[in-house]
């Protein structure tokens, strides 16, 4: 009665396709269940993100990827957080660091003590209590300490890398594990007449690629999930108006810094992602509020190094497929949904979908409860990331353009409205245990965007003010010293993972 899958077909290479292929090849026996990835060299891939978050370590570990080796192959640099410039006000900046602020005392989160001191006239920004902030400012890096008593255990790191190179790196891994790659453009998707499941893909060469399970990694258009299965798409433009991006690489003008930068512009924002050999740049904007020409001009005006290529325009609709898993098709990557890379979550959302697929790995019967639960859990993951991104737009004091005035006034999802009201009232950041962004992430962005709670945790009053003040002073000193003792980011790269020429 068992009905194991015999053929898995992945439509589309790129980061999503190869991440899926490599991860699946690690857990299934490709002798019995073949994995074929169909991609065409004629179709460009959208190198999503290029910046990652620390959860990628988990993915790499599960695939048995050697970090140094991967970093060398992808021109990678280290990342300690994202600097947001001009989001709250045009002249304001903060870092969303991969790490804690200060030290909790008496079981009370640090930011409550910071608020308490602030209510007493202390003006030091909370960034002063973040080691990754201090290190990023100095352009320094060191691997975190595993000893929880050390201040150097209070942060994590991720990577900036060339996502296309990461895809190629995973391709080598996947092929070594038995994944078969086929070159060819998909010209048709054939459905089974009886149940509407996908039967096969027809390639330009005339070849038919049959399979039991199809993974749609064809990008925005969703060749299988949408064009063939008409699954439907939730459009989130009313919450996330940006729907275009110009991307362009530039030459490095200095040593790469260990953080991503996201600078707010009049109708969107601009990213800067430092790699070893170049810098990735892009301008994400809303076509409703700004013309493509103007957006291109803004990007050109705000590049720090020489452009190494013509800017490329990407069009997208922020949102999510109604069902990421529909019949025998699972959409992963942009085919499943698109959220702008403001918090570097694109690769993570691919990772989350691949891991869920492994958790709910089907056989040919495609049990409905599995499919429903997979969709329920991934929907939640997308909603959660979406809300976190919306927060950056909604919580702003900017009113210097039509775009920002729209964002300030827009209605946000109920869940986010509830979280914002709760934090504003009392400094409690509500999150679920399984969420990607936990208390420290929400606190960083809430405070960074200017939501200062009206009241802090009453338990701070258990410690005398003088004690709180002295301990906080001590934390600041420790952090300053720890950051200064780290090595220059470029020196760590040179020693650890310099890419070959």
């Amino acid at each position, binding site marked *: *009665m*068992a009905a*194991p*899958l015999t053929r898995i077909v992945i439509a589309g290479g790129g980061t999503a396709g190869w991440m899926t292929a490599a991860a699946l090849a690690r*857990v*299934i*026996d490709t002798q*019995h269940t073949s994995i074929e990835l169909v991609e065409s060299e004629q179709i460009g891939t959208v190198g999503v993100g290029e910046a990652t978050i620390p959860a990628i370590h988990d993915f790499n570990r599960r695939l048995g990827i050697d970090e140094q080796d991967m970093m060398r192959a992808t021109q990678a640099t280290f990342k300690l957080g994202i600097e947001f410039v001009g989001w709250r006000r045009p002249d304001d900046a903060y870092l969303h660091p991969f790490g804690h602020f200060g030290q909790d005392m*008496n*079981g009370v989160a640090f930011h409550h003590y910071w608020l308490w001191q602030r*209510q007493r006239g202390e003006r030091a920004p909370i960034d002063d209590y973040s080691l990754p902030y201090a290190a990023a400012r100095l352009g320094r890096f060191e691997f975190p300490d595993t000893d929880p008593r050390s201040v150097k255990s209070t942060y994590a790191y991720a990577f900036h890398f060339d996502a296309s190179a990461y895809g190629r790196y995973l391709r080598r891994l996947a092929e070594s594990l038995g994944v078969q790659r086929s070159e060819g453009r998909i010209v048709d998707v054939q459905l089974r007449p009886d149940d509407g499941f996908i039967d096969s893909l027809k390639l330009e060469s005339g070849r038919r690629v049959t399979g039991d399970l199809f993974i749609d990694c064809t990008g925005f258009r969703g060749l299988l999930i949408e064009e063939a299965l008409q699954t439907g798409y939730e459009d989130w433009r009313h919450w996330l108006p940006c729907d275009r991006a110009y991307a362009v690489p530039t030459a490095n003008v200095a040593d790469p810094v260990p953080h991503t930068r996201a600078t707010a512009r009049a109708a969107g924002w601009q990213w800067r992602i430092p790699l070893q050999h170049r810098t990735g740049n892009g301008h994400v904007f809303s076509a409703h509020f700004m013309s493509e020409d103007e957006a291109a001009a803004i990007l050109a005006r705000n590049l720090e190094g020489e452009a190494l290529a013509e800017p490329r325009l990407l069009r997208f609709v922020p949102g999510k497929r109604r069902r990421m898993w529909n019949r025998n098709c699972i959409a992963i990557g942009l085919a499943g949904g698109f959220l702008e890379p403001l918090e570097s979550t694109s690769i993570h959302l691919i990772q989350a979908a691949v891991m869920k697929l*492994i*958790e*709910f*790995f*089907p*056989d040919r*019967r495609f*049990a*409905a*409860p*599995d499919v*429903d*639960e997979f969709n329920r*859990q991934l929907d939640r993951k997308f909603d959660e990331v979406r809300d976190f991104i919306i927060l950056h737009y909604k919580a702003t004091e900017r009113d210097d353009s039509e775009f920002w005035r729209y964002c300030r006034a827009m209605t946000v999802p109920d869940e986010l409205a*509830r979280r914002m*009201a*709760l934090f*504003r*009232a*009392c400094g*409690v950041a*509500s999150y*679920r*245990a*399984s*969420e990607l962004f936990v208390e420290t992430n929400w606190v960083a962005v809430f405070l960074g965007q200017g939501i200062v709670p*009206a*009241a*802090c*945790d*009453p*338990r701070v*009053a*258990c*410690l*005398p003010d003088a004690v709180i003040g002295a301990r906080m002073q001590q934390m600041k000193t420790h952090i300053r010293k720890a950051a200064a003792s780290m090595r220059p980011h470029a020196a760590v790269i040179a020693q650890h993972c310099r890419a070959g020429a």
Partner: protein
Amino acid sequence: MSGADGIRRVVVLGGGLAGWAAAAGIAHSLRGSGVSITVVDTPRSRREPRAVRTLPGSLAFFRHLGIGERDLLLQADAHYCLGTEFRDWPAEGQRRLRAFGAYGADIGFIPFHHYLVRSRAAGGTAVDINAYSVSAAAAAAGRFAHAPPDARTLVAQLAYGLCFDSRDAAALLRRYAERHGVQRVASEMTTALRHDATGCIASLHLADGRSVGGDLFIDCSNADAALLGATLQVGIEADAALLPCDRLYEFACDRHGAAAPRTDCTLTERAWLVATPLQRHTVTACLCPDGALDGAGAAALAARHGAAVNGTAALSYRFANGRRQRAWHLNCIALGDAAGALEPLAVHSFDRVQSGIARLLRMFPRTACDTQLAEEYNRLTRLEFEHMRDYLLVSYELPAARPAGFRTRPGAGREPSSYARRRALFAATGRHAADDDDTFDRHAWVAAWLAAGLWPAQHDPLLDRMDPAGLDSHFTRLREAIAAAVAALPAHGEYLARLRAAKAPGRPPGDR
């Protein structure tokens, strides 16, 4: 925040276990802040079931206060508990153990139980999940010990809660609370006075003529819900009404020798009999629909099932299954049964008391009427309650063949959708629908489903790439190692005697 509208006076209504636990927890957490805490110790609130059995996670409450397991052994008659044995369940003559902690060892990405599902379908015989759990094996064998600190042995995986006497534990917590400045006022409450403008509670009038004013009121009056229910008129959600038992009788029963470190739940035709072992005796609770049995009938039923009811008067406790619509309303927060009761089969109300206290401390009100915080507190309380209710419903997964009485699956077809979804998923593919804020993890759910005889229709297809013989020998070794490790443990009674005799500061490793 410490301005005129901050919380300066906390009043706890109820001098039972919940009330003193709340007072001790708040006193510990707010020491030095100048907040005063008064417990209105009402005789009514002390008429509560004596037998408490906690989940492993609840011990953190005591640890946080600096109260060790040994303190509970010496002062609250505590007894270790590794799980529950269900008897005459799901079918007559059957016995099924559900232990705390992890079962087996996952196979890469694949949860362990899929191995059992496949073995069973292939006609394998070693498919009792309890053979793959140290806690289950020790519970069955009546053995217990702590592993040495930092040991990476099988014994270090023993997951346990405690059984203890609620009155003794309340006394222990009372001493702790009074040492930390908590005031005690002993009297029944007559009425609660409310502010005209806000509706918030202003003060409690007591039978002895005194009045106790406060800014924040904690309702620990058990099923009475004297403040949240009677005063503030917050009603009970009806969705848990599909649970049949709302009357509990409790008897102290003589026992010869030591008991195994587990509780036993026997399903009879008219009631559940829950035997909770303490050191000096066993407490048997008879849990039935109100009106189905009187005290004498319950005692006779327990005696027929082997309980040596020792003649002391039975305690009778009535509760209504279901959650109060809001556990926190205005300036009143209810804990334990006052916030919502459930048949104490899978979870004792103390588990909700302690998690409620932890939640309350994490979100202690800044002002008397903190609507945002209250909303968040209530949201989390609701999720917790619903998970516990769903987990409890597994105990009613009974074969249709069982005779009538209350022994039918209550509300079959009327289950909450959260339960139906979980059940359908597990029944189809053995997958666990992980939910945030669920008190029970995958292991607990899987053990419960399998104990009830609900086996998935298929196992994880990824398991098929594994060599069955290799897995068999791997898990046979695990089973044998568990059996050997448990055989080397001392009998539970012997171990307890050793712990009691040990001189402080030789605290048991569990207190580290």
